[in-house]
């Protein structure tokens, strides 16, 4: 799915095919997350579940700018990122069930999807826990002279953690090839941005550390992609770390068990008018890029892909209890 051609910064024109592809990716995320919500309520998925519905434009916009040898570090709201990065939906769904065929062998669950093949280095359940990791991966690339980018996704909540400030400073100080993507959805669990941050214009926080930073409408996949491409190109040209604040919004609760006492419905409805999927399809229809058969076809393909993923997960095996202590160490060590 990602742009394979290594040609120097070939800019994809907003062709019909390219736009259809962006639409398809966002619909895949939307339907997958809806199905996970349903499966959770049927007790098939347990533990925590954080849905990405409403923020699809950010993952769809950024993933397209990454090359196969780049790396991704994400958060516990990372189903969409994993799928768009190329982790098979079957393996992701099996992981949600906790089956051994899951992309983390069933051990991680919703918040800890890993796939080294696509250089997807996991969800992380500790807010801002991934930022130092991303900085470290970029450091290795820089030291070995590898022309790679490490994309690090995090939310507005992470901006309050010490690790955010330490990571940005270090990345800037050592000019490390990191793309910091802040998915600012206005809420850190139950705390609104303006009740957590003295400075709510988050991309200015990054500028203070001499990191090139920009804010973009996180509900507009085309805008996100354009900005992300500019930044990844700059990084590959050695300009050092970049910070992209995507102003977006989650239509669902923080996690499954959240009565959302902290925000009112009117606000949610208001943001739903900027639904990234609806917006793109409407714009494509206006410009004649979207034919009547396109969306139903995308929905059918997505439905089939999800049904196959659920069937794969249902048929999966539980990891045998005897393997409980396997892989605690690379070489067997008995404490």
């Amino acid at each position: 799915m990602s742009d394979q051609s290594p040609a120097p910064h070939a800019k994809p024109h907003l062709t019909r095919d390219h736009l259809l592809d962006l639409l398809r990716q966002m619909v895949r995320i939307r339907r997958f997350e809806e199905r996970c919500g349903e499966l959770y309520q049927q007790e098939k998925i347990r533990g925590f579940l954080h849905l990405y519905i409403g923020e699809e434009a950010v993952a769809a916009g950024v993933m397209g700018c990454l090359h196969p040898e780049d790396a991704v570090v994400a958060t516990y709201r990372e189903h969409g990122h994993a799928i768009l990065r190329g982790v098979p939906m079957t393996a992701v769904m099996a992981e949600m069930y906790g089956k051994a065929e899951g992309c983390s062998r069933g051990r991680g669950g919703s918040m800890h999807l890993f796939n080294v093949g696509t250089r997807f280095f996991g969800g992380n359940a500790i807010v801002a826990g991934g930022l130092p990791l991303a900085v470290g991966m970029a450091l290795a690339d820089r030291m070995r002279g590898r022309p790679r980018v490490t994309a690090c996704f995090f939310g507005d909540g992470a901006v309050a953690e010490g690790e955010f400030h330490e990571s940005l400073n270090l990345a800037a100080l050592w000019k490390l090839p990191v793309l910091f993507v802040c998915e600012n959805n206005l809420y850190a669990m139950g705390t609104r941005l303006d009740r957590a941050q003295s400075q709510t214009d988050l991309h200015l926080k990054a500028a203070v550390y001499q990191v090139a930073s920009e804010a973009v409408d996180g509900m507009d996949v085309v805008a996100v992609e354009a900005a992300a491409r500019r930044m990844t190109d700059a990084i590959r040209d050695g300009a050092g770390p970049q910070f992209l604040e995507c102003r977006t919004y989650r239509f669902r609760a923080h996690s499954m068990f959240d009565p959302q006492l902290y925000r009112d419905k009117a606000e949610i409805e208001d943001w739903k008018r900027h639904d990234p999927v609806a917006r793109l399809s409407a714009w494509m229809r206006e410009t004649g890029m979207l034919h009547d058969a396109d969306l139903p076809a995308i929905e059918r393909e997505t439905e089939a892909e999800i049904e196959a993923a659920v069937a794969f997960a249902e048929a999966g095996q539980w990891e045998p209890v005897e393997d409980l202590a396997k892989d605690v160490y690379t070489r067997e060590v008995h404490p």
Partner: protein
Amino acid sequence: MTDADITVAASSRTITYRDAMREALRDALLRDERVFLMGEDVGCYGGCYAVSKGLYDEFGPDRIRDTPLSESTFVGAGIGAALNGMRPIVEIMTVNFSLLALDQIVNNAATLRHMSGGQVSVPVVFRIPTGAGRQFAAQHSHSLEGWYAHVPGLRVVAPATLEDARGMLWTALQDPDPVVMFEHVMLYNMEGTLAATTGPVDIDRAAIRRPGTDVTLITYGGSLSKTLAAAEALAADTISAEVVDLRSLRPLDGETVLASVARTRRAVIVDEGWRTGSFAAEVSARIMEGAFWSLDAPVARVCTAEVPIPYPRHLEQAALPQPAAIVAAVKALMGA
């Protein structure tokens, strides 16, 4: 607000551990204006485990303070406020996030009094949910009470019953030194009856929850119910097990533990921490030092398997201490 205003009408009532803890919070906030609650989503959201639900509306944003996700800083701020005349209750959403605040807790809260030559004290209470059991996977399932019980300058308590959930907080707030109170996440839904008059309880002594003569089962916090279940199963095999609930990990009530082991001559310690360097190891060492001549069998430990807690339910349950493992450990000691 006088004491009289907080009496509760009914003689006894069914209540959950969560509600008992909320009652303790409310009672403390009403009785002492220096008391305030601070932590992530304790206000509008009503608390990650809904313990402080409703308090924001009753006491307002000044005394029920939501914080940004900055554990090191808001825990440090709680310590600072305590230094300066307040009696803060700092809720750290889970022990897993408390790792980000360990520096403040160990190098400031626990150390300031001694390091200042006794000039200051830090009357702060940290409430920290802990433990596994709900498939929250490795980063959200830690049980690190033993780490905190290692640090001189801290008091560490683990309320495992409704009486303790209702009664420990006020006593902890009166203590001039920092108290870390661990609430096991599997206890919040526990329901039972509680006398209306239950008030503050001591936070120093262990309690014998079930007398017995053949073996002493020593545990705390979330493992108490599993240990009592094991004792029940052992009774059916005519093995009389005494269950000791430590209640306080630091200071450890060695007297009660050693007296019990001297009577039964066998001991099994149940601890949700990982075996190596666990709190159970400390209790075992004290028994070896204090009751060696009374022992008829080696001190046994039933702890969590030394693996990051896996997400799938059947693996998580296999990793955690279970009644069957406790029963097996006891029978091994009895030579059965």
